[in-house]
């Protein structure tokens, strides 16, 4: 997966600058609500053609965790 493309779009969703979005960027109540979860699930579907489970995505507390979840789903699909 192209992490840079994902990070650029993901930064838009959570309304931060892409340059501030490092792997350990913390996802919390201020930037990680239910509308964002659904938007990110749809974004991942658009970019990679996989559906990440909603609860597992909600449980992600950092950007690295989200990327790990996507990679996990891509591996399952392979």
């Amino acid at each position: 997966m192209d992490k840079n493309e994902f990070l650029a779009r993901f930064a838009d969703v959570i309304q931060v600058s892409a340059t501030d979005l490092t792997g350990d960027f913390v996802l919390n109540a201020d930037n990680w609500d239910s509308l964002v979860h659904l938007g990110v699930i749809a974004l991942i579907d658009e970019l990679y053609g996989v559906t990440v489970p909603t609860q597992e995505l909600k449980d992600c507390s950092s950007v690295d965790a989200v990327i790990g979840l996507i990679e996990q789903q891509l591996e399952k699909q392979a």
Partner: protein
Amino acid sequence: MFLCGCSYRTDRTAAGEAGIIRVGIDLVRTDRFEFIRGVGGRSFYRRVYTKPEQEAYGDMLSDLAACFAGKEAVSKILGTGLSLGSVDRVSCSDIEILYSQQHVLLSNQARGFAQQLGLVDIVVRFFVASSWVCAIAGGTTDIALHNKMLECIESAGRDVTSRLIHSQNM
């Protein structure tokens, strides 16, 4: 401002137990919703809205945002929250809200959770304040509590609306 309301009612009545009213609320900022919808693209639109909702609302932002908030509010009275297609959870498309026809249609997991909770009457009301849409859903196990439930919802709606207006004027 009161926008409109939708309701879902079964013919079944709960017997023997004291009735329960469950209330769920969701707030969506329309500009934020429009942005997320754009990022999620067609996948978001296709997965969040049923075919009849897509036909009814087309590309009307305020209606799409209100419908989404309504689904969230209903999912909260079901105690589940929304997902985009997980088989073990309530999916967005399991809750259909067509307020032109004044109805909430539950299917699949949503219907199952409502039955487990004994809900026989579900109502959604929408309130608009500035750039916010507020949806408040109520569900009861006893149809006799319908009017009481509406009172709760409309009281909560007035409260939320006035707080939103107040916060934006500060």
